[in-house]
């Protein structure tokens, strides 16, 4: 790139200008066009910043504030404790129109804080707005703890006593913090967490495996019923096998159930009592707690560690509480698996089509038309592909497949319902134009001389293609595939029709034969954002998680895109050298 492309405007600057000549020179319009770039840059960077700040900030264990509050409506005084979630300026007019009688002398604009007060089981709401002017004696008591629970969201309050099988082991008076009590609490919580992990492990792997085998046996039995021309001896042998297997599973099931019962008794052994700032005493079992923190006495380093722990949990755990808490691991897994399957399907077909169009097809009007058509398909709305996938794959092909191969399971559909296979196939069709276009571009960049050299040495066309052209075009193919992957990873609209669900009971890849369950529905990061942000019963609580999920998705896609860009640049450099 030479410098002539940027025009030297300094020539015109030095002249002594009037406003009119300045306008006539067009200088202001250059600034205006520059402003368009500035606005776009600010928008992109601002968007990424919003996602980063809001998404990552969610994991930060901020301090718990406690204050006295006089309600503006009823005038009653209460104690409030919670974490500051948001703060905004509201005009007096808006507050008055919502029925609050406020002292007009304090100015026209008031500060309002959104506090996450938790204790949804006691108060019914997670978040509440408080007028700043009505708060008094704001403090951060060191004994105030936040518990992340498996149900009902966060709990804010003071620890009172730790109990074992209903008998108090250790206790402390309310609002007083004592280290040994807390240590006792921590160690028992850790025990409960470990037990819980074992229970989860058994339920998720062993029990599920047994259930899966039972289901397979049921299908075998049904298939046996449907198969009319089986001789009776075989039939008897087969039903005996099924009965035997059933009995075997039943025994295993009982053993597992016993272990689980035992574990459940163990985990339910310990409990503790805590008191909220308003003086309500509650008794909870340790089994219901995920995290317990005392943010007001944590150092910055401890907070950073806690932040990383939460982040790791977000990436590796399953969602809880209708997806509003916990992690997004199944969604990450689903997205990656679906995209992998898609790229396995799209790469060979896209490359073959591109090679055909560029190397074998007669370059005429027809090929040109096809090329334009393929190019334009990349611009067809993705929802159209979704509709196609639903109608053609799910209701068309899927139902036929069910009738041919999965008759035993009918009327419950196997492939005649949205699922992983159809989702990845639909996205493969959606992204195949991207791969074709990129590969073709790569093929077109390979100099004629290289091809001719190979042919002149006696290689056949196929050999030239395989040994010379394709290796040289491979970076272009990679670019195409990566771009396809990036597009597929962010696409949601078609997936909503062909296989994504808000909560999949199991990952589509597990230890049960055939390991990869192509008929299963799966979770997806993009859909997770849509679902949690817009369909969730508790949007306020879920919002930070949505920001975090969105940030994760952006990071994944940005990494994919930048690698595509780098590969492309690398490729261009390579052929620049070849052309000389």
């Amino acid at each position: 790139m030479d410098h002539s492309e940027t025009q030297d405007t300094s020539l015109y600057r030095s002249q002594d200008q009037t406003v009119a000549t300045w306008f006539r020179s067009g200088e202001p319009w250059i600034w205006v066009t520059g402003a368009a770039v500035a606005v776009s840059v600010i928008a992109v960077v601002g968007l990424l910043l919003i996602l980063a700040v809001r998404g990552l900030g969610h994991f930060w264990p901020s301090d718990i504030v406690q204050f006295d509050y006089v309600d503006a409506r009823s005038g009653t005084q209460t104690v409030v404790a919670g974490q500051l979630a948001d703060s905004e300026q509201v005009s007096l007019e808006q507050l008055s129109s919502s029925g609050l009688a406020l002292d007009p002398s304090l100015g026209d604009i008031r500060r309002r804080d959104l506090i996450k007060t938790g204790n949804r089981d006691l108060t019914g709401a997670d978040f509440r707005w408080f007028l700043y002017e009505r708060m008094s004696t704001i403090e951060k008591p060191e004994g105030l703890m936040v518990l992340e629970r498996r149900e009902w969201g966060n709990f804010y309050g003071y620890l009172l006593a730790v109990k074992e099988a209903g008998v108090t082991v250790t206790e402390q008076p309310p609002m007083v913090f004592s280290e040994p009590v807390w240590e006792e609490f921590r160690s028992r919580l850790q025990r409960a967490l470990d037990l819980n992990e074992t229970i989860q492990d058994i339920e998720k792997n062993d029990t599920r495996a047994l259930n899966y085998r039972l289901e397979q046996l049921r299908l075998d039995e049904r298939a046996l019923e449907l198969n009319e021309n089986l001789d009776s001896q075989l039939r008897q042998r087969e039903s005996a096998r099924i009965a035997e297997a059933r009995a075997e599973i039943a025994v295993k099931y009982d053993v597992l159930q016993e272990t689980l019962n035992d574990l459940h008794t163990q985990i339910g052994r310990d409990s503790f009592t805590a008191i909220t700032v308003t003086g309500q005493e509650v008794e909870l079992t340790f089994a219901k707690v995920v995290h317990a923190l005392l943010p007001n006495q944590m150092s910055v380093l401890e907070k950073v560690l806690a932040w990383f722990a939460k982040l790791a949990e977000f990436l590796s755990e399953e969602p809880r509480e209708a997806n509003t808490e916990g992690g997004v691991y199944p969604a990450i897994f689903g997205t990656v698996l679906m995209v992998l399957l898609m790229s396995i399907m799209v790469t060979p077909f896209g490359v073959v089509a591109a090679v055909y169009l560029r190397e074998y097809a007669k370059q005429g009007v027809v090929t040109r038309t096809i090329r334009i058509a393929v190019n334009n398909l990349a611009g067809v709305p993705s929802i159209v592909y979704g509709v196609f996938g639903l109608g053609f794959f799910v209701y068309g092909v899927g139902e036929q497949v069910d009738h041919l191969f999965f008759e035993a399971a009918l009327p419950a559909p196997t492939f005649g319902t949205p699922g992983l296979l159809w989702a990845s196939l639909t996205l493969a069709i959606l992204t195949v134009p991207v791969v074709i276009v990129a590969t073709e571009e790569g093929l077109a960049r390979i100099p004629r001389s290289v091809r001719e050299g190979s042919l002149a040495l006696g290689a056949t066309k196929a050999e030239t293609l395989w040994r010379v052209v394709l290796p040289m075009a491979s970076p272009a193919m990679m670019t195409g595939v990566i771009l396809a992957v990036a597009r597929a990873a962010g696409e949601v609209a078609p997936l909503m029709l062909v296989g994504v669900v808000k909560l999949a009971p199991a990952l589509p890849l597990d230890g049960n034969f055939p390991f990869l369950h192509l008929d299963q529905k799966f979770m997806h990061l993009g859909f997770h954002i849509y679902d949690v942000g817009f369909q969730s019963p508790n949007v306020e609580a879920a919002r930070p998680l949505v920001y975090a999920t969105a940030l994760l998705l952006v990071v994944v896609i940005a990494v994919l895109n930048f690698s595509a860009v780098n590969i492309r640049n690398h490729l261009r450099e390579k052929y620049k050298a070849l052309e000389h």
Partner: protein
Amino acid sequence: MTQSSESLLLEKDSFFQRKRRFKDRFARHAIAGGGLAVIGAILLIFLYLLYEIAPLFQSASIEKTDSYPIVGDGQSLHIAVEEQGELFLRVNDAGLAEFRRVESGQLSKTIPLLDSSETISSFASASNESRVFALGLSNGTVKVLKHDYRSVYRGDDREIVPEIKFPLGDSARVLTDSANPIQALAVRDGDAQATIAGMDSNDTLHLMVIEKEQNFLSEEWEFNEQLFTLADVGSAVRKLIVSEDQRYLFVLSHADDLKVYDISKVRQGGIDSLAGQYSLSPGHTVNDIRFLLGGISLLVHDSSGVLTQWFWQSFDGQRRLEKVRTFAGEQGNATILTEQRRKGIAIINHSGLLQLAYTTSSRVAFEDTIDFAGAVRQAAISPRANLLLIEDGQQTIHLWAVDNEHPETSFGALWDEVWYESYPEPEYVWQSSASNNDFEPKYSFSPLAFGTLKAAFYSMMLAAPLAICGAIYTAFFMAPALRRKIKPLVELMEALPTVILGFLAGLWLAPFVEKHLPAIFAMLVFLPPAIVLVAFGWSKLPIRIRESMPDGFHAAVLIPVVLVLSYLCIAASQPMELLFFDGDARAWLTNDLGVSFDQRNALVVGVAMGFAVIPTIFSIAEDAIFSVPKHLSNGSLALGATPWQTLLRVIMPTASPGIFSAMMIGLGRAVGETMIVLMATGNTPIMDANIFEGMRTLAANIAVEVPEAEVDSTHYRVLFLAAFVLFMFTFIVNTIAELVRQRLRERYGSL
């Protein structure tokens, strides 16, 4: 070339050579096959969409399957087919309910409806779908009956067992003590109330209202009947109808005068009970009148062959029956039938012409002559509307299988204003489903297409100037070092999943805009002049400072300026609100300007979708401007033109086709975008260009409704049609853009 390789080439028939040739040929065929298959698969989308929507535009077809005579006495008063299409009921004037097999006419069961002393003097059917009918007897009493069916399974075989029930108790209702025969009769049975109207031979009209209550302990029905008589109805009554809501009684005279009585006023003593009087078809005789499914529309067929649809309209608080739609047909007598699930009508002209019409779409899906002998004695359509049964004057039953899947759509129903039932005027409405069965689906694409274009328009309003100005600057003025950083940023912007933009638009931007409404408009108004001012200020700065900015770094200088200005606008938002809008701009808009305001509105969509479209337009337009051959601009500059003049006079005319195609592709993307619209609007299908209200687009509509649509139903196919419309629109727009770009590339090549 070495000796060995030469010999290799010459030695054609060695095994090795054959293998190579085979491989070459194999590769050729495999790649051609594979390539064509992929291209075929892509084409399949187009063909499949066509295949799914084709049935929408096909005419209905019928096929005569059988005809057989009915052996036995008694003329038929009524025939009705049961749900499965296996049995039909034939009520004859001897008072027998004959249940016969549809395929053979064989008698399956006969139930006597009368005692030996009773004779039928009139008959009325409430409606086909309620299966309630009434017999008016010559002793002045009325029997209300209902035919019902049970499925009984014996192993895998299903048998349908018919029965006759008594919805109002099994004793006859006495309409008149005078024991005069009932000459005309009407009945309606509702959940809480039933109404019977009967005209006796003394020309007295009796009205019986029966209130029903179910004892919640014994679950037995208790009935409480009240009897009224209507005076001055006139003598020659031809037909009585009670409306489905049991509010009105329609009395048709032999002179084709229709009198409508308000039943509630009759019950209060009869004063002013006549709610209206209509001459239904002046100059012609009325063949048949009946209600369409749902009991809202009255259908009238007259001897000129015209079928008219009427329903209630309010004029200044006065309800009047208004004629809203007509279907032309053949002169002569005719029987009309209504479907039980849809607003479909069958018109059987006694001369043999059959028309299958549909009211909403004003479409006649089938029109042809069918053969039966003589007049139509009775006729019935099965509940699934797949079977037509006619008993002719010679007591022969004729059977047709009807294939009429999608009469609900027509070009007019999709794109024109349609006068839907109970609407005051023809309107564009999309409302595909509702909770009740007799709902009239409203498939108008117009509000969706309007919403699509509205969303696209507002996003293009934002995206087009920003992207094109940005492209101009980046391609022509920007320093190469900066350009290398900007381009990947824009590419990243293009790759941002729209679900993220939609989520930010819905959950962050929409509340932000609502709260800082004045700031948004202040930015639009103040930013451009402020930029020019800054530029002017810059030109007045001492040359040493100006020189410190390298060429093509205007954008970098402007970033802090734009940031500060935006911050000022946002900070000043609340004071502005206090100053100009009484502290609440939103309330001010609604109360003072009468502009309704949704939080998720077109402005939010415009910004979010604009954001999604900017990179598309930007990169194509930038490419077009950057590829303008350098010698053109250099020549212009050398001749003394300023860079701006060069841009306007030399670069832009050359690059404008490219910019045009960039806009087209951006438009295509805005039209098809789903997630942003889904998340950032309320998805209400309204036709209003107001920037502060939402919309529903074709794409979002598909995403919302396809998962719930019943496969192969009209709704499902209409959604496929919407997808097809989107497909064709974007495909055509993109093709135009692509052709323009190719032309441009050729032009650059020749320069």
